[in-house]
């Protein structure tokens, strides 16, 4: 600790801190523009100049480390003169037309100018004008307002992982710009809006729609990935106007992914279902709640009475709340139905009954930064959990080594130490190789099931897999780490794979040897919560996949669009079409619900209260930030009244809090969570290592802006480059083998279904695979996300059909 003095106040500060750190900790205000605690120090704005004893010129507080005995004056004549002069310089070329600037009212320059600026200007020369740049559908630019602080540049480079903005030109001609004709494509790009201290970068969707002081700010939790990021929702006249991050160091720090920031535009979509609807003779009719609920209850009763509870299938979105999950589970039980599931994009359920608890990520989000070695299995991490990717990027910047086993070679925008890119079928073998190499390194005799031991004997360890094993063991080119902190995580592609059980078991075995932390990366906001609530089939019940494979007489859908949210789109559509009755609790009236019979309008997360449990087991409740649109009702209420109408007992909740209390038995949630989270298996399962070698495999990734009904309806997100139409993406060698070329039209067949797709050369795809995005109407005829697929060149009739499809979609 060092002893210093700021403005006469004696302080004890940590060695290595800067003057601005010390002042911030002591609550002494120093003005600043370029400094940001999460970015490297640029010291270019010079606004933070302070006087330091024994120095003949003012020093920038943001870049000056404290020394023992230092005496600092932030308000002395010399300091204030320096600050005022910098303020004057900053303002000479600034437009000073705050009334027409979108940042007005929440602008650092405006605020600091009030405190440090003069009332008039001595500048009478001509002002500089800088042309605006179009950097994409999310961020709007007003470059004449830019004060060249380079926060945006540093953010994209250091946090986003790729320098997408830079300063070109010198002196007064210096301008912030993107690469020629390029937009800013980072999935974290919205953060530069928050970082920009002036109105140079503002939100394109929000721009000019409200003034900051007209907005009511309410706290909530982001609902699109497993992180549980803290958000602040800004509301005007009961409408969500924008979403900003709420600082939470241990989860989202001060950032937010673009998906969580801009999805709100989907809340105001014209697709919103505002009144209950019933289909009569193939025609949709609006109705009132009472009629709708009575009709729905009647249908449920009739069908379960006639065919048994088993005839009903209940499919639940993992983005729904714990309360909703709990109630729908109770309701199903009340109807004698054990077919309930939230794992809509899973196909391998062999681990059911073998788990000792709720699977989770196996460590805290913040701990990722401290890992020395990270193995990602089947995860396109930037697509799945953008902010988690950012944490891993930090770990890598701190010296961690990242290894990847995946069918996709997407650039994670950080250094990858070792990677093996293979067909999903071969991933199990690769993990087996790592395990075998590992046991060789550690000279361990593994306690593995005999069949696995025999299987491992057959496996040949390849050099690059050997490297991964060595890396995880702590051996690398430069030095040997004794007992490195290892994290092993399975992502969405692994979770959707028909051999998830094998991958999971291998990962667990490797983790056992390395003493790794880790687990699965639950894809949705409440995946872990749904598992904890037991929103899964009863011992005799059917899982999500079985429910659509063997069609049910009736379905109860919570917050899903079956063909877009299920593992097997074609089966899902088919099952819905065949059912006698489909009851959908939904916020949207969508084409994907054409086969439904009753639509009950429920409130999206902004219009209801509830609880999510995040990937790290954090139980976070939130309140409604606006009132429900039209006749929408919170889903927990709808489920409660539906249960009441069905005459079921035990549904007399008056608030979501009461449901929550029931769930946690009035205990602190952490107590239950602590008892429940567990990635261990009761027993190892028999596994197969060498699987079918021939044939093409589909990699059916869900693009991040197609992941759930809300984001699918956010126009700005849909305009980003991530939202390009699904194509059949293949490696160059694969194209040669099939005699295809980039741009060709092909028919992709899976099971009985097919899709017409354009071919795209994509060397990031493993050979033997076709990457065809899911959750899109164009691929709704296809099957398993990670399954066998065949590709054929399209005929001329197909070409005409394709054109027709395109016009229809437009």
């Amino acid at each position, binding site marked *: 600790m060092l002893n210093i003095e700021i403005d006469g106040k004696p302080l004890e500060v940590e060695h290595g801190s800067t003057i601005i750190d010390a002042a911030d900790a002591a609550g002494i205000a120093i003005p600043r523009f370029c400094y940001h605690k999460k970015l490297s120090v640029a*010291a270019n704005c010079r606004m933070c100049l302070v006087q330091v004893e024994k120095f003949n010129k003012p020093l920038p507080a943001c870049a000056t480390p404290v020394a023992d005995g230092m005496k600092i004056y932030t308000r002395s004549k010399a300091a204030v003169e320096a600050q005022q002069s910098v303020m004057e310089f900053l303002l000479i*070329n600034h437009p000073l037309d705050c009334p027409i600037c979108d940042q007005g009212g929440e602008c650092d320059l405006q605020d600091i100018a009030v405190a440090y600026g003069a009332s008039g200007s001595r500048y009478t020369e001509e002002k500089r004008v800088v042309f605006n740049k179009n950097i994409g559908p999310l961020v709007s630019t007003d470059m004449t307002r830019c004060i060249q602080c380079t926060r945006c540049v540093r953010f994209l480079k250091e946090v986003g992982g790729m320098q997408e903005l830079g300063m*070109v030109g*010198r*002196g*007064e001609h210096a301008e912030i710009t993107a690469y020629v004709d390029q937009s800013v494509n980072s999935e974290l790009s919205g953060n530069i809006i928050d970082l920009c201290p002036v109105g140079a970068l503002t939100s394109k969707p929000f721009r000019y729609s409200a003034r900051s002081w007209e907005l009511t700010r309410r706290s909530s939790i982001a609902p699109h990935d497993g992180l549980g990021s803290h958000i602040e929702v800004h509301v005007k006249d009961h409408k969500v106007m924008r979403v900003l991050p709420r600082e939470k160091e241990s989860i989202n720090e001060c950032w937010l992914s673009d998906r969580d920031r801009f999805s709100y535009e989907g809340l105001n979509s014209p697709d919103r279902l505002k009144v209950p609807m019933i289909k009569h003779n193939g025609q949709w009719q609006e109705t009132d709640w009472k009629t709708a609920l009575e009709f729905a209850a009647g249908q449920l009763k009739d069908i379960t009475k006639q065919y048994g509870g088993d005839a009903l299938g209940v499919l639940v979105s993992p983005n729904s709340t714990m309360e909703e999950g709990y109630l729908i589970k109770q309701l199903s039980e009340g109807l004698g139905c054990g077919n309930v599931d939230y794992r809509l994009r899973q196909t391998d359920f062999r681990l059911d009954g073998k788990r000792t608890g709720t699977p989770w990520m196996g460590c805290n989000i913040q701990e990722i930064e401290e890992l020395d070695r990270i193995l990602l299995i089947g995860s396109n991490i930037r697509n799945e959990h953008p902010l988690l990717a950012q944490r891993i990027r930090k770990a890598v910047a701190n010296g961690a080594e990242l290894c990847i086993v995946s069918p996709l070679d997407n650039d994670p925008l950080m250094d990858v130490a070792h990677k093996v890119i293979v067909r999903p079928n071969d991933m199990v073998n690769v993990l087996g190789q790592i395990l075998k190499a590992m046991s060789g390194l550690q000279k361990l005799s593994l306690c593995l099931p005999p069949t696995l031991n025999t299987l491992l004997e057959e496996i040949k360890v390849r050099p690059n897999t050997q490297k991964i094993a060595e890396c995880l063991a702590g051996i690398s080119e430069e030095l040997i780490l004794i007992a490195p902190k290892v994290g092993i995580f399975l992502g969405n592609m692994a979770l959707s794979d028909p051999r998830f059980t094998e991958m999971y078991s291998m990962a667990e075995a490797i983790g056992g040897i390395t003493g790794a932390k880790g687990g699965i990366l639950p894809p949705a906001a409440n995946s872990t919560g749904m598992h904890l609530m037991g929103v899964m089939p009863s011992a005799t019940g059917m899982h999500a996949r079985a429910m659509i494979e063997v069609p049910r007489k009736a379905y109860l859908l919570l917050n899903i669009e079956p063909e877009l949210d299920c593992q097997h789109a074609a089966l899902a559509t088919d099952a819905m079409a065949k059912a006698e009755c489909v009851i959908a609790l939904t916020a949207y009236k969508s084409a994907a619900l054409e086969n439904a019979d009753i639509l009950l309008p429920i409130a999206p997360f902004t219009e209801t209260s509830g609880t999510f449990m995040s990937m790290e087991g954090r139980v976070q409740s939130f309140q409604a930030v606006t009132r429900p649109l039209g006749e929408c009702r919170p889903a927990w209420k709808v489920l409660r009244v539906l249960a009441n109408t069905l005459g079921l007992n035990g549904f007399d909740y008056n608030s979501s809090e009461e449901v929550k209390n029931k769930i946690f038995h009035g205990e602190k949630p952490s107590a239950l969570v602590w008892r429940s989270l567990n990635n261990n298996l009761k027993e190892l399962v028999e596994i197969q290592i060498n699987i079918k070698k021939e044939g093409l495999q589909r990699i059916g990734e869900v693009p991040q802006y197609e992941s759930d009904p809300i984001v699918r309806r956010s126009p700005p997100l849909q305009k980003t480059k991530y939202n390009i139409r699904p194509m059949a993406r293949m490696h160059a060698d694969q194209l040669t083998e099939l005699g295809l070329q980039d741009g060709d039209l092909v028919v992709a067949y899976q099971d009985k279904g097919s899709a017409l797709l354009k071919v795209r050369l994509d060397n990031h795809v493993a050979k033997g695979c076709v990457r065809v995005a899911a959750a899109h109407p164009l691929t709704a005829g296809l099957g398993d996300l990670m399954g066998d697929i065949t590709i054929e060149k399209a005929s001329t009739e197909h070409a005409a059909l394709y054109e027709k499809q395109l016009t229809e979609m437009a």
Partner: protein
Amino acid sequence: MAEQTTKMATRKSSSAKKAARPVVMTDLTGQTLVTLRTLNEKNPASLATYEKLGGYAQLKRLVTEKIKAPEIINQVKVSNLRGRGGAGFPTGLKWSFMPRYYDGTKYLVCNTDEGEPGTFKDRDIIRYNPHQLIEGMAIAAYTLGARVGYNYIHGEIWQDYEIFEAALAEAREAGYLGENLFGSNFSFDLYAVHGYGAYICGEETALIESIEGKKGQPRFKPPFPASYGVFGKPTNVNNTESYASIPWIMQHGGQAFADLGVPNSGGSKLFSVSGHVEKPGNYEIRMGTPFKELLEMAGGIWKGRQLKAVIPGGPSTAVMPARAIENATMDYDGLSKAGSSLGAGSMIVMDDTTCMVKTLKRLSYFFYEESCGQCTPCREGTGWVYRIIERIVDGKGKMEDLDLLTDLSNNISGRTICALGDAAATPVLSFIKHFRPEFEYYIQHGKSMVDGK
């Protein structure tokens, strides 16, 4: 676009430099040349010439006799050699800042980026005596444990760059650069880097950024290059003339070098004399030589006119009216006592037909155009200052402008990331201080007091 126009504009000024054909000579007494000792030979830049004059003998001696680094650094300290790039920082002291034990590559960088108007001495070193620079750098590399070196050469000098590349090839061929020199375990690779002509790339940390392939923008210091330089590794940066002095110091000893000059300013120094003199060019003279003597060597004021003012060390040093410089001596203390500084030794001489208002306009334009734009006071201030002076020259000046100019310059100075801010303020402050009536006249009459235009 902006970059390109700047380059073209400076191109023009560089051909102006060429017109001022350097007459290089020793001082009036015929003292031995230090950094240009091959000059009077037939093929001054060739290896054979340099070897004939004892070149590379010092490098060989130090390496083969395994002379210890502290001993070499001590000689450099004794020599009183101060950095010739402008700041005058004692070279021996700078060398002692390099971390002795470091697990990784250390770098050596030579600054041949001279881009300040009126500065053209380093160019003559690489043109006429490149091997002495190479030897100097190799000795520094041996002393400081640097494995790799770069010589960053100004973007607008092509022929000289090629001469230096040729010298590098010769030195590599002859075994003065490369691996295990003279059979020892000392290895040193040296490369030339050709810049693009930005003045700011002469600032050592901007130069380092530029070597790394980035836009040349100064870094905030600390950390200094000695701890965080090229690619984040410990790096020693010196000026061309500084390195080129080293072989002489090693040959004759630090004391002999110190004795060439005066206390606090060791050795001889190259002065680039330009402006209104009969014989503009580079003059290598002993430190402490009277100004009058240097002026005489340069043939005196041209066309029989009178001396009006001198910028003694380049535009970043304060202008001196004739009376202030006339009795000064050309060394660090001498010039600082007389109210300016030695800078890089770029002496710009102005006769009595010079309009100081228009001269200042040109100088301010230079700094305005060359500011890297990174930090607020320099980016905004240099443009503001230039526009005011431009307005004055256009006949639209106001009396308050003079105080405003002074105030703005004081607000730039000392508040920026690098010294370009101070450099931009110095001419404004010193011109107005010494020639205020000329500015007032211009504002009142809308035309120059000197040329009436």
